[in-house]
C-alpha cells in the first residue's frame, strides 16, 4: 500500500487547555473560521475527495495493500495498555484550535444552519446531551469520548473498547463482508470490517445511527460511513487517520487524525470496569421543558427537589 496517507500533522496536548479563562457558554458564542489545513493534511483530504464513497476509499486501500490482508498470530502488534484520546474532548478535529473557532468540517447549508443554531442555544445555557439518558456515544462519536480505552488484537477480530458505556467495537478481519443492504439496520457502533496492511489496520464501518460528533460539533446522519487506518507509531502512541462520509451533512469527506496516548499505569491501578449508567440516582439528568438539562432529585436532600 502506498504510504502517502501518513504525513506528519501537528496536533498537540496543549489543546486540552483550549478555552481556558473563558466560560464554555461564552466561548462557543464566538464564531471564527478554523485554520486552513496544512499541505500534508490537504493531501489526505484530497484522497478522500477522490473517492465518492467510503467503501470506494476502503477498496482503494485494499487494492494498494500488499499481502492478503490477514494477520498471523506472530505478527499481532502490541497494543496493550490503557489509552486515552489526546485531543480536547469537545473537538472532533484537534486542528480546530480554540473554543472560538468553528469545526473544520465542510458542511452542507442545512447542517451548517443546524450547527449554528445549536451553538446559539448553548450560548444561552440551553443544552441537552442525549448521553444524559444513558444512551451510548455510538460511532463515530465513540472516537472522541475522553475516558479510558483498550484494544485487543487477534488475527480474526480486533476489539476496540471504550470504558464509557462499555462500548466494544468488533472489527472483523477474517475476510467477511458487511451484511447485505437489505438486512442492514442502524447500529450504535455500526458494522466494521477490516484488513491488515503490515502493521496498519484499515477499517470500513457502516450501519451507524444518527448522532453528534460532540456537543459543540456537527450532527451526523444514519448515512454516515467511515474509513479508519490505525497504526501504533510509538510505544505510547496510536494514530488513527479517519475519513467520514455523510452526504446529507458533509460536502466532502471530513478527514482528521486522531491520536490515542498510552497512560502511565505502573501500579496497574487503572483498570476498565463495567460502567452501569444508573447505579447512582444523583447522576440522573432530565431534559427540561426548554430543551436544556437539570438534575432530577438528589439523594442528599430532604425532599423531592425537582
Amino acid at each position, binding site marked *: 500500500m502506498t504510504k502517502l496517507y501518513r504525513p506528519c500533522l501537528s496536533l498537540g496536548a496543549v489543546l486540552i487547555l483550549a478555552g481556558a479563562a473563558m466560560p464554555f457558554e461564552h466561548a462557543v458564542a464566538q464564531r471564527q473560521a478554523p485554520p486552513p489545513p496544512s499541505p500534508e493534511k490537504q493531501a489526505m483530504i484530497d484522497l478522500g475527495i477522490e473517492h465518492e464513497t467510503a467503501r470506494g476509499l476502503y477498496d482503494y486501500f485494499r487494492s494498494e495493500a500488499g499481502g492478503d490482508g490477514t494477520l498471523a498470530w506472530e505478527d499481532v502488534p502490541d497494543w496493550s495498555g490503557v489509552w486515552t484520546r489526546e485531543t480536547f474532548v469537545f473537538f472532533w478535529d484537534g486542528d480546530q484550535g480554540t473554543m472560538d473557532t468553528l469545526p473544520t468540517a465542510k458542511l452542507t447549508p442545512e447542517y451548517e444552519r443546524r450547527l449554528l443554531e445549536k451553538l446559539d442555544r448553548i450560548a444561552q445555557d440551553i443544552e441537552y446531551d442525549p448521553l444524559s439518558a444513558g444512551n451510548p456515544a455510538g460511532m463515530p462519536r465513540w472516537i472522541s469520548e475522553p475516558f479510558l480505552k483498550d484494544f485487543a488484537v487477534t488475527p480474526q477480530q480486533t476489539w476496540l473498547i471504550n470504558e464509557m458505556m462499555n462500548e466494544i467495537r468488533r472489527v472483523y478481519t477474517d475476510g467477511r463482508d458487511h451484511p447485505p443492504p437489505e438486512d442492514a439496520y442502524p447500529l450504535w457502533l455500526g458494522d466494521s470490517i477490516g484488513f491488515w496492511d503490515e502493521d496498519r489496520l484499515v477499517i470500513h464501518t457502516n450501519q451507524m445511527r444518527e448522532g453528534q460528533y460532540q456537543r459543540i460539533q456537527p450532527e451526523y446522519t444514519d448515512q454516515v460511513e467511515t474509513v479508519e487506518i490505525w497504526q501504533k507509531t510509538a510505544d505510547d502512541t496510536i494514530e488513527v487517520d479517519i475519513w467520514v462520509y455523510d452526504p446529507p451533512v458533509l460536502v466532502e469527506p471530513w478527514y482528521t487524525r486522531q491520536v490515542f496516548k498510552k497512560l*502511565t499505569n505502573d501500579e496497574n491501578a*487503572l483498570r476498565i470496569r463495567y460502567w452501569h449508567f444508573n447505579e*447512582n440516582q444523583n447522576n440522573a439528568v432530565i431534559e427540561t421543558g426548554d430543551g436544556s438539562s437539570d438534575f432530577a432529585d*438528589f439523594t442528599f436532600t430532604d425532599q423531592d427537589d425537582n
Partner: protein
Amino acid sequence: MKIKLAVALASAVLVATTALAHHSTVMFDEEQEVTVSGVVKEFQYTNPHSWLLVDVTNEDGSVTTWGFEAEGPSTLMRAGIRRSDFSPGTELTITGHPMKDGRPGAAWLHATRGDGTEFDPRSGFAIR
C-alpha cells in the same frame, strides 16, 4: 464545624472542569465558586460521575449535606484520588461551581483535606 461559605467570581475557568461524561454543565454557575468546610458523609465512587457528600454545620447548628460532583472512578484515579482518601468523617474544605437553582450541589473544583493534602479532580484528564 462552622460553615464557611464564600461565593466569588471565578477566574480562569478551565472548560474541562467536570461533567464530560454524560451531561451538560448548564445547571452549574461556572462564574461562581462556593467553598464549604465540613466532614465527609459518603464518597459515592460511581460512573458516570462520582459524588462527594459533605455534611456542613450551619451557624444555627443545623446540618446541610452538600454534594460535589466529579468524574467517575478512573478519571479520579488518574487525578490520584482514591475512594479511601475520603472515608466518612474526614474533615475537609471543598470548592466547586454551585448549582444555579440554589440546591446544595456543586461541580467539584478542588479540596483540601484536614491533614493539608490537596486534591484536584480536574487533573484527571491530563495525559501522563
